[in-house]
């Protein structure tokens, strides 16, 4: 297959970037999207050009490191697919593909397609954990947890923190990410003692990081490679209202 790639190139945080067009040919349909970038980078290196910088790690759709906008979709137009799990067979031969980084004030571009997502780390650091001393591993079932609650916590814990929700959100809001982390802990008894402090701190850190304000469009849920539901955002809202009323 062959493609015309229009890739955002930006030297560093301060530089003003621009799109550069790269024709690539001789690509197998089973090439993954990141492999396509690898192939292009090898060709760029061979002719002495600067390779395209992009984030990646597991390439198995589980670590949340990869991600950029592809033809206006965060990660991909395929449902629940990370960029590393996207394959060129999902595109048509000869297609022009526009590739740009996540765009959000809270995620500044570091280089080309790499953005700084440490705002997510700060949200977690501000409360996305349980501070009680847990001691050694407890016996299984020592704490009874209803199956529904455990399932809900697992659904929330599926979030890999890739940032596609922010990227796809018309407001660049981080509500889906933050709500998944809060819902995961609030669904389990171990998370209850700190739930009020946690939601206040995590939401405050989120707000002060420069994310936007959710308008319930649902774009985050559609873009999420793990299918995290916007129902968790309502859960976050309930937690915050509870904290405001009784906190």
């Amino acid at each position: 297959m062959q493609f015309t790639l229009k890739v955002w190139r930006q030297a560093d945080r301060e530089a003003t970037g621009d799109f550069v067009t790269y024709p690539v040919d001789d690509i197998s349909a089973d090439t993954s999207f990141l492999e396509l970038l690898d192939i292009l980078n090898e060709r760029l290196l061979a002719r002495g050009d600067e390779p395209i910088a992009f984030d990646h790690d597991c390439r198995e759709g589980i670590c949340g490191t990869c991600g950029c906008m592809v033809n206006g979709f965060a990660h991909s137009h395929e449902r629940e697919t990370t960029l590393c799990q996207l394959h060129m067979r999902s595109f048509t031969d000869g297609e022009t593909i526009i590739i740009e980084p996540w765009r959000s004030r809270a995620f500044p571009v570091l280089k080309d397609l790499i953005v700084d997502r440490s705002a997510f780390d700060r949200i977690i650091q501000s409360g996305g954990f349980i501070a009680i001393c847990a001691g050694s591993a407890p016996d299984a079932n020592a704490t009874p947890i209803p199956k529904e609650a455990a399932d809900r916590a697992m659904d929330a814990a599926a979030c890999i923190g890739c940032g596609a929700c922010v990227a796809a959100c018309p407001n660049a809001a981080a509500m889906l990410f933050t709500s998944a982390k809060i819902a995961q802990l609030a669904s389990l008894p171990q998370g209850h003692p700190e739930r009020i402090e946690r939601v206040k701190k995590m939401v405050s850190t989120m707000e002060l990081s420069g994310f936007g304000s959710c308008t319930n469009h649902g774009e985050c849920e559609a873009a999420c490679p793990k299918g995290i539901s916007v129902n968790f955002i309502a859960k976050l809202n309930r937690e915050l209202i509870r904290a405001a009323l009784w906190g």
Partner: protein
Amino acid sequence: MTWPVLGFFNTSTGKKVGMGVTGFVVVGFVIAHMAGNLQVFMGPEKLNQYAAFLVSLGGLLWVLRGIILLAAVLHVIFATQVTLQSWRARPSSYAVYRYQASSYAARTMRLGGPMLALFIIYHLLHLTFGVVQPAGEAFDPHHVYNNVVYGFQVWWLSALYIVAMGLLALHIWHGVSSMLQSVGLNHPKWNPWRFGLSALVAGAVALGNISMPLAVLAGLIQPA
């Protein structure tokens, strides 16, 4: 490291709970206002009596008006704040961006909101204060029925009201379901009802309100 804690109304959730609650008050008013106005179909007596009854409430009427006005003003303030926050959050926009999930109603909230605010001002000048009278007939504060009918006989004025009610329905359609989500009233089991309720309220407001100018234009309602 100590982490900052913002007051509830300094968070975007707090502002949207504020938008939701004030929106709820305004939607409640919109429904009551429509129910009252639909008495235009029952003839001049009935509608004018109803208007006289409202005026006879005196102080209570002003309290109610105050609550609605306060709700509307706060709604606009909260909406402006969260909109500015979101605009700041994405300083450079995408070269290509594709919607996957948002409804047309959701995407037009920020356009429809200010347009509705302008319409409301015009509507107050037309039928509450009576200072703009496109029909050229004198405004009679004791003859609400004729004020309405003369107004709607002007085709472009009716068209303006009909378009505005379409915008209002769109705003309510997304607004009601969004408000329930913002205050956390969301459960997978009830979500079909949540979307059904917002569509029902939006549809009822559009149909009920648009029926009045249409009836006047069709000649079913004549000046008394």
